[in-house]
């Protein structure tokens, strides 16, 4: 970047936004303008917004690039802006105490930011930023130098697999769709919740990917399917579409190739099942998102009965890279059967929650302890849940497993669209499984029997177990139920719905049995199975717990050791949290 400009990049993804990034950016503009900074230092200053940089727990992140050196500030608030402008921009001296710490480096070190790369660098609302980094070159290359079949072959050679649920080979899907003769075809980009950072950070890449996809399969209409509730994503995509249209990247006779392409929004409304592609099509057609029977597959008979390719935004974002840099470049990343990178939202009990992109095959240990910076509060890692609600639970013993499609399938999980939640010793695995089943039960569309009734029965049984009335027979019933659901459900949701139970039961059988045989919740989560009591020799009779108790279950007086009346206790844990002397025992 030119040396005569000072760039200030404010992280303004959903996370930066939530942390007050808009205000931070406004303050930068305000000070730079008010104090006539540009004139005083003789350089241009360009404060701009950029997409998510991933390190969301320390938002708002602000990069100041001056004299070829980049300084990243963390947790910036509007009141800090004036000093940054004064001391750093004007004075040339970065404020060390506010800059990111080592953890930021280690957070980034193991990542391979291929798709996310531009997200923290370019202004998502400015197509010129995208063009400056070779944007739309891939589309041009495809349309002017490659045949549609050539594009399909290139994608097949790259080994790219769908970044959504089942990990189907993208190129093969395209090939099938391409092979069906039809006057009308569609390409659909599903922008799910985990794709939001892409839509917010680099919307043009999604559009370019969709464009290339349309060219490859012979579709002249593309849909951006997005929940209307993702306001920021919608806004940025809308803006991106307008700009792309203005520059002639969408419309008629693109790049002089004779290929016409138009993109439209289709606004869905929240429903987890819309991640299933046939349900998604129902939603685009304006109906209840109940999955259709397959076959026919969408590639043969999709939207309005026409051949349709559906991929998610991450998949499409990979396309310009594959076409632009070549399939060989892409295939060099990852493992033998799982190529490229995968984006995850790392959340839960790790220190660094955030958005991460890793090369396929990276061991979980590197993700949790390297990128994630270990477990919060130095507690012990218990398990990692990957692949969204219907994914599986991976125990500590499998920390060295490489994350790719095959390995996850082997342990009963899926890559899914990219959720990764880390649990520590304080989390009860039965409750976690119950949580996911409850979620899936709520999101089941209700069409087929195994999923509609099966998830309900599973939830009831798990509730029984966490409530302390479960039996070993119930575990057998759960297993039997899981078998029926996995093999007979209509769509992926129902087929994978038993995963949270099956994988957790596989790896944490003892914990289940403790709930059943000993009526104990080892993690101290299941309220029906825990008791609170005062450890007499630790109690300082301060009265904090007594005042915190909503049920008046605690007796005691100043200087009199307190006691909890088990009959009155509602097990809310208020006393446990209130006690400063660790004198309340939970077991």
């Amino acid at each position: 970047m030119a040396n005569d400009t000072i760039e200030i990049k404010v992280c303004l993804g959903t996370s930066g936004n939530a942390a007050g990034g808009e205000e931070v950016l406004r303050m930068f503009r305000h000070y730079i303008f008010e104090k006539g900074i540009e004139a005083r230092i003789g350089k241009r200053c360009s404060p701009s917004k950029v997409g998510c940089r991933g390190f969301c727990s320390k938002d708002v992140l602000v990069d100041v690039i001056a004299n070829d050196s980049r300084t990243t500030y963390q947790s910036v608030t509007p009141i800090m802006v004036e000093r940054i402008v004064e001391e750093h921009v004007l004075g040339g001296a970065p404020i060390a105490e506010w800059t990111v710490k080592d953890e930021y480096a280690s957070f980034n070190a193991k990542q391979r930011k291929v798709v996310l790369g531009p997200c923290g660098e370019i202004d998502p609302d400015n197509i010129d930023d995208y063009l400056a980094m070779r944007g739309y070159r891939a589309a041009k290359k495809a349309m002017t130098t490659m045949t549609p079949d050539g594009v399909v072959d290139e994608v097949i050679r790259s080994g790219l697999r769908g970044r959504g649920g089942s990990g189907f080979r993208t190129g093969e899907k395209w090939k099938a769709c391409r092979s069906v003769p039809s006057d009308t075809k569609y390409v659909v980009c599903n922008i799910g919740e985990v794709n939001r950072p892409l839509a917010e950070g680099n919307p043009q890449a999604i559009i370019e990917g969709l464009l290339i996809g349309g060219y490859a399969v012979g579709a002249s209409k593309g849909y951006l399917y997005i929940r209307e509730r993702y306001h920021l994503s919608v806004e940025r995509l809308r803006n991106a579409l307008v700009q792309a249209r203005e520059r002639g990247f969408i419309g008629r006779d693109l790049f002089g190739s004779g290929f016409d392409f138009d993109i439209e929004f289709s606004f869905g409304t929240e429903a987890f099942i819309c991640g299933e592609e046939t349900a998604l099509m129902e939603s685009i057609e304006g109906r209840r998102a109940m999955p259709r029977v397959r076959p026919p597959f969408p590639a043969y008979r999709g939207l309005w009965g026409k051949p349709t390719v559906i991929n998610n935004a991450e998949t499409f974002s990979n396309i310009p890279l594959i076409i632009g840099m070549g399939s060989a470049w892409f295939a060099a990343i990852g493992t033998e059967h799982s190529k490229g990178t995968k984006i995850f939202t790392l959340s839960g009990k790790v220190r660094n929650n955030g958005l991460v992109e890793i090369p396929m095959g990276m061991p979980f240990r590197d993700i949790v302890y390297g990128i994630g910076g270990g477990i919060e509060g130095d507690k012990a890692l218990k398990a990692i849940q990957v692949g969204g609600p219907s994914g599986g639970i991976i125990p500590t013993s499998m920390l060295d497993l490489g994350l790719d499609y095959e390995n996850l399938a082997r342990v009963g999980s899926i890559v899914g669209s990219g959720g990764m939640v880390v649990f520590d010793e304080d989390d009860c695995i039965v409750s976690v499984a119950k949580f996911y089943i409850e979620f899936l039960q709520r999101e089941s569309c209700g069409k087929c029997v195994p999923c509609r009734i099966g998830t309900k029965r599973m939830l009831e049984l798990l509730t029984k177990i966490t409530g302390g009335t479960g039996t070993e027979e119930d575990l057998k019933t759960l297993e039997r139920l899981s078998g029926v659901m996995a093999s007979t459900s209509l769509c992926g949701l129902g087929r994978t719905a038993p995963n949270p139970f099956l994988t957790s039961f596989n790896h944490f059988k003892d914990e289940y049995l403790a709930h059943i045989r000993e009526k104990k919740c080892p993690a101290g989560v299941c309220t029906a199975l825990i008791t609170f009591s005062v450890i007499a020799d630790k109690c300082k009779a301060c009265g904090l717990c007594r005042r915190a108790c909503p049920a008046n279950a605690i007796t005691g007086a100043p200087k009199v050791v307190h006691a909890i009346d088990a009959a009155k206790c509602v097990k809310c844990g208020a006393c446990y949290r209130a006690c400063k002397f660790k004198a309340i025992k939970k077991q």
Partner: protein
Amino acid sequence: MSSNDKHTHDGSPSSPLSRLSSLSPVTLTIDGRPIEVLPGTTVLAAAQQLGIHIPVLCHHPKLSVTGACRVCIVEINGQPVTSCTALAENGMEVTTASPYIEGLRKDILDLILSDHPYDCMVCERAGDCELQELAYKYQIRTPVFHGERRIYPKRDGNPFIERDMEKCILCGRCVKVCDEVQGVGAIDYAYKGFGTKICPPFERDLDCEFCGQCVSVCPTGALVSKPSLCKGRTRDVRTVETVCPYCGCGCNITYDVVKNEVIRAGSRPETINEGWLCVKGRFGFSFINSPDRLKAPLIRKNGKLTAASWEETFAYLGERLRSIRDMHGPDAIGGFASARCTNEENYLFQKMMRAAIGTNNIDHCARY
């Protein structure tokens, strides 16, 4: 607006896959028996051609495919697949009733029954219920799975159709028949997940054409005809086939008769009306047993219609008609035949007018 919004899927189960493949027949093996079928044939249909029975609940031969109940599951090349949705392909190896498959089927039925009232003893459809039949066949006495059941108040005020949604297994046949065949769409799926329910908009009372097609396709006791309630069990019923007395469509009707009373109307699927009826045909039969029926001849005496014997009536009529004919000529007498009487009666009527009375003054209300 896409036309799809107005009326849903075209209802044809054929897929472009089948249209793409050449029209040469497909050969597959079902339970070890080879069979050749046309491309686009489902595995279920192929099995039926071989006379192999696969249980179904949501499938209906005249409606589009749903694939919701999953009981028609079979093993295709080792994988469990619903046979109503799978299209026959060359070289397929299908097993319809391995212990594995039968086990899955039983568990699915078990799940359905875990959310179904156990009141078969008072259910109108007992003995004529597809779910009961399968529960019996698979010997499900006490379900393995059990838990909360959906409980709904019954409060539909319409006079034709009783809707007991607790017995509904959400097969969707009623929704499809209402939309695809009848073109009404009075009911649809509402809510989702375990709470999914088929109901009229905003759970109002059913307000539709009341053709009762939904009742005729319902596999359980969820939809039954109100006028027929408690009028008699299937076992006591005698069925008679005849033709509907209403409009000119000439629908075939099968009446269920108990003693001397028609209690229910239905129709066979292979008739010109394909088994479908309208509200008049399906529910409009009770006039036959109406207490208002004329039961004796009446002659006006002193300005009042008074009951008379047939002998007296015929004698009177013979005398009166003869005297009018003799006095004013045959053309002073006229006759209206009826578009609601049989061909034979009309033939006799005109023959009487022409041959016995001697006039061509005969007409009927074809013009109204």
